[in-house]
């Protein structure tokens, strides 16, 4: 261990590559996991004063890992609250309906549109958040409201589901939200999802008593379980951010393993003589083995420690950008995550030790006699282990791609990425096999010139060195092409599909609001859909379906596969549960594959049973009539708006992931080349002695670097195109239409350019400095 410490201290430059790779990999993973773990559901602030909450019962089917719930109808909720109020220790049992309301200032709707869907509450629920009136009185009648930031007596303009309204402020509250009379709130919302209890006893004891009262009609939550009641929008945002963070951890971790093992391999190859000397003076293979592990441990502990600190320091800085990009909710805050940091610290060490594993075995077998050999000519570039591992990885990657179309669509992206990682690993492991013929072909035209000859022979004898340099380029180009290519292929398909269906009409849509009010819709002439949902009970299982209300629907209209799933046919009936919690039975009017949603219901029924629903858009049939929170645009622009919103998120993902990949591997390229070039000082000195000027030496070293970049690019592009073809096959199988393969040449060229520039710089620096 002492020896290891000495070695590391002396040859820090040689270990700097491993150190940096570990530190950055750990920083990325530590930062991402810190952000991920910080973004856990929280009990909404408006339930802070309610230690026991009762949630409406689950009704099967899960979405984003959360069960779907059926709200209580208003009457049922009021009755249940009445029974809960009699439980000992309960001082108040309050049904908590929420509804859409937005304040209008100067004719424009204000506040976050998505959050405004839940901004309206019943006055009695203010107590659940511990909110009090700071002035005035509680709202008691329709058209009265209590809110923060308005003095009693003022009249505020608001926008509700029904349309614009003018409400009189009766009181000023010290918490967020619009509070109206309980009856008014119940009328405006679709059922009651939660009943909050204010207790003055032991919450667990009260909860136990409440469970006896509620039975199967709901779930009683206390303590951290109340976090489940976070609004769905917030959870969806967190989920989106989590996808990015998971991808970052996967790519960061993979790249770290990759770079650590390739830099370790290179630095070990460079130390062959030194290791042989140790063997000659009496180090057993086991001792060399242990020395290598000990050295790596020293480097890894230092690297991991720096990485963890870096990750923990940078994570909070990313909170605001993530909120701004819509990848975290506005209430998101970063907290120190000791588990994430400790775990990542250990991970960094394990990764480094794994990276040194195969190298240490080989180093241990270094014959002592090698200490006497002057030449640094690389030995066999391919060890049997390397062959086996490379071929296994290639076979595994291809097998995954072949099976891709048979997998569920949700797991295709993950499996496709896994396949690409395997193929990239195979490419890196098998690179030496390709390098020799490739170099022969590429350098053929210049074989007569001195530079050409030296480059050709230099690369052919130093195959492992070239492979080490090519590996990170391979990784970067492969990842960048694959990610951008997959996204480009998919969006091309989506865009083409959606834009093709759009008629040349004008559309009225929401402007700063989550949707259009009834009044705004009624003012327009045209066709509109009211988005809602229904739960259908078929043979004991309950499934939730997206539904739309349409004024032209003759009854229930179903998609063929929806009809098949619930076992209904035209002429039959379906019993369903509405968003307000009530039950109904509808005749099936038609089964139609062209229906706009899995379930279509008459608009008036949808309106009656989902008082909170807002219309997304109206396809105009006549001139638009202005209304608050409404704007018009061409249908094409409207669809484009949707695509743009999606693309903006995808672009953020791509920029983050490719930036991460390119940044990291660019560093690896620079690092391998700096190490390799510095170690070849004597070779370059010999070249100079043979009469080469600095320019010529520079030409030789640059040509070699470019050759390595070229090899990496060729292999990376091959892997990416193979994987992209696999993805395309899967998409084709899914959609049943021909999909063009989009190869992102522009982005790929940029990435290759960056790699080449970094490579040239990294070779030129040591050559010029060691004059």
């Amino acid at each position, binding site marked *: 261990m*002492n*020896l290891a410490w*000495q*070695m590391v*201290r*002396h*040859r820090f430059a040689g270990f700097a590559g491993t150190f940096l790779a570990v530190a950055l990999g750990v920083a990325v993973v530590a930062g991402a996991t810190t952000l991920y773990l910080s973004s856990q559901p929280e009990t909404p602030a408006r339930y802070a004063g309610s230690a026991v909450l009762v949630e409406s019962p689950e009704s099967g089917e899960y979405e984003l890992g959360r069960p779907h719930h059926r709200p209580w109808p208003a009457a049922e909720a009021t009755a249940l609250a009445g029974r809960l109020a009699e439980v000992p220790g309960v001082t108040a049992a309050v049904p908590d309906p929420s509804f859409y309301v937005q304040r209008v200032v100067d004719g424009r709707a204000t506040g976050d549109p998505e959050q405004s869907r839940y901004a309206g509450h019943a006055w009695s629920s203010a107590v659940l958040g511990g909110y009090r009136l700071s002035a005035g009185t509680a709202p008691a009648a329709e058209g009265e409201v209590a809110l923060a930031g308005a003095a009693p007596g003022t009249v505020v303009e608001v926008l509700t589901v029904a349309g614009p309204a003018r409400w009189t402020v009766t009181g000023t509250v010290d918490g967020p939200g619009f509070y109206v009379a309980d009856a008014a709130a119940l009328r405006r919302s679709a059922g009651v999802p939660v009943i909050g209890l204010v207790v003055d006893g032991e919450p667990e004891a009260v909860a136990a008593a409440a469970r006896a009262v509620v039975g199967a009609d709901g779930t009683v939550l206390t303590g951290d379980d109340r976090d489940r009641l976070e609004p769905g929008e917030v959870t969806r945002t967190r989920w989106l951010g989590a996808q990015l963070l998971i991808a970052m951890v996967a790519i960061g971790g993979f790249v770290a393993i990759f770079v650590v093992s390739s830099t370790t391999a290179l630095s070990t190859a460079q130390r062959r*003589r*030194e290791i042989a*000397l*140790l*063997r*000659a*003076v*009496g*180090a*057993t*293979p*086991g*001792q060399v083995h242990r020395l290598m592990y000990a050295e790596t441990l020293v480097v890894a502990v230092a690297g991991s420690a720096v990485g963890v600190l870096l990750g923990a320091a940078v994570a909070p800085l990313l909170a605001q950008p993530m909120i701004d990009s819509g990848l975290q909710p506005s209430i998101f805050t970063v907290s120190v995550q000791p588990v994430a940091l400790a775990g990542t610290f250990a991970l960094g060490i394990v990764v480094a030790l794994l990276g040194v594993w195969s190298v240490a075995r080989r180093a241990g077998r270094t*014959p*002592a*006699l090698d*200490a*006497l050999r002057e030449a640094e000519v690389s030995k066999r570039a391919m060890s049997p282990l390397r062959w086996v591992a490379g071929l296994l990885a290639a076979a595994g990657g291809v097998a995954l791609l072949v099976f891709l179309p048979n997998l569920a669509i949700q797991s295709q992206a993950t499996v496709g990425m896994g396949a690409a990682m395997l193929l990239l690993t195979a490419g890196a492991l098998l690179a030496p096999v390709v390098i020799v013929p490739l170099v022969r072909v590429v350098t053929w035209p210049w074989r007569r010139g001195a530079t050409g000859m030296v480059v050709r022979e230099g690369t052919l004898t130093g195959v492992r060195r070239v492979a080490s340099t090519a590996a990170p380029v391979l990784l970067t180009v492969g990842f960048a092409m694959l990610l951008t290519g997959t996204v480009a292929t998919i969006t091309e398909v989506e865009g083409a599909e959606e834009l093709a269906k759009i008629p040349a009409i004008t559309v009225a849509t929401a402007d700063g609001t989550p949707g259009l009010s009834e009044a705004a819709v009624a003012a327009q002439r045209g066709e509109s859909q009211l988005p809602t949902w229904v739960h259908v009970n078929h043979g004991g299982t309950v499934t939730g379906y997206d539904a739309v209300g349409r004024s032209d629907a003759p009854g229930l209209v179903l998609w063929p596969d929806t009809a098949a799933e619930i076992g209904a046919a035209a002429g039959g009936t379906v019993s369903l549960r509405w968003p307000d919690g009530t039950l109904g039975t509808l005749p099936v009017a038609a089964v139609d594959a062209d229906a706009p949603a899995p379930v279509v219901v008459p608009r008036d029924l949808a309106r009656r049973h989902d008082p909170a629903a807002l219309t997304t858009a109206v396809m105009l049939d006549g001139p638009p009539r202005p209304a608050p929170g409404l704007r018009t645009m061409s249908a094409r622009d409207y669809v484009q708006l949707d695509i743009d919103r999606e693309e903006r998120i995808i672009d953020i993902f791509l920029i983050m992931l490719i930036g991460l990949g390119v940044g990291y591997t660019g560093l690896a390229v620079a690092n391998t080349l700096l190490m390799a070039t510095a170690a070849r000082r004597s070779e370059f000195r010999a070249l100079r002695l043979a009469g080469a000027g600095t320019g010529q030496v520079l030409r030789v070293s640059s040509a070699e670097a470019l050759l390595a970049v070229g090899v990496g690019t060729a292999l990376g592009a091959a892997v990416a195109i193979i994987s992209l073809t696999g993805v395309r096959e899967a998409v084709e199988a899914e959609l049943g239409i021909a999909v063009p393969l989009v190869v992102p040449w522009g982005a790929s060229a940029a990435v290759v350019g960056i790699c080449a520039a970094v490579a040239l710089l990294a070779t030129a620096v040591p050559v010029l400095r060691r004059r």
Partner: protein
Amino acid sequence: MTITTTAPAIELRAVRRVYGTGERAVTALDAVDLRIPSASFTAVMGPSGSGKSTLLHCAAGLDRATGGEVIIDGVSLDGLTERALTKLRRARVGFVFQAFNLVPALTAAQNVALPLRLAGRRPEPGEVTAMLGEVGLADRAGHRPSELSGGQQQRVAIARALVTRPAVLFADEPTGALDAASGREVLRLLRTAVDRHAQTVVMVTHDPFAAAHADRVLFLADGRVVDSLAGPAGAQEIAMRTAALEEGVRAGDVAEARR
């Protein structure tokens, strides 16, 4: 000639070393029998390609013989595992190479202590300093190889080779990379080790002047011991023998070519 009662430090019995197989096989050592008595200084000479380096590698256990048996300090190398062989080398054999003898990361003292540490033994207080003192470098203990001259590095290498009190010290062209003065200093140290500490030394060299420091000079040609000179021989005589040997080889080559 005196008859030594002690066992030989090194014994080679019909040792063969063949590189490659089939048509391309090259015989570097051809049935060499050799006994190196303890506390003697033996020089091995011969034209390049005569097998002198191979002889040293096989005798030292760095390389394995294709046939025959090598016995170091009474232990046969036959059938030893790589680990056992390493331990044997560590305990009974010391090396001084032509160049690149020292681990660049370690100071002179640490380099000297390295074989002891690898054997799992903590050097006794003063042991390493005393060893460095013997090669005249007690004041350089804390220097790294890059801060030492070539001659000084070679002296540290001798100190390291001797610190385990090995049965044999092998030196492969120890003066090859040094200037004349430094080379003399290294040879004087080797001679002293033999005379004062009864150390056995085997040195491969092509330099008649270096060989003149030995008790016995062995001449190799075509993988066989073809001649030997006992007792302190003059550089002049050694040079003449070498010249004769090289002539012979050349004559042989010519004869072979004519056939």
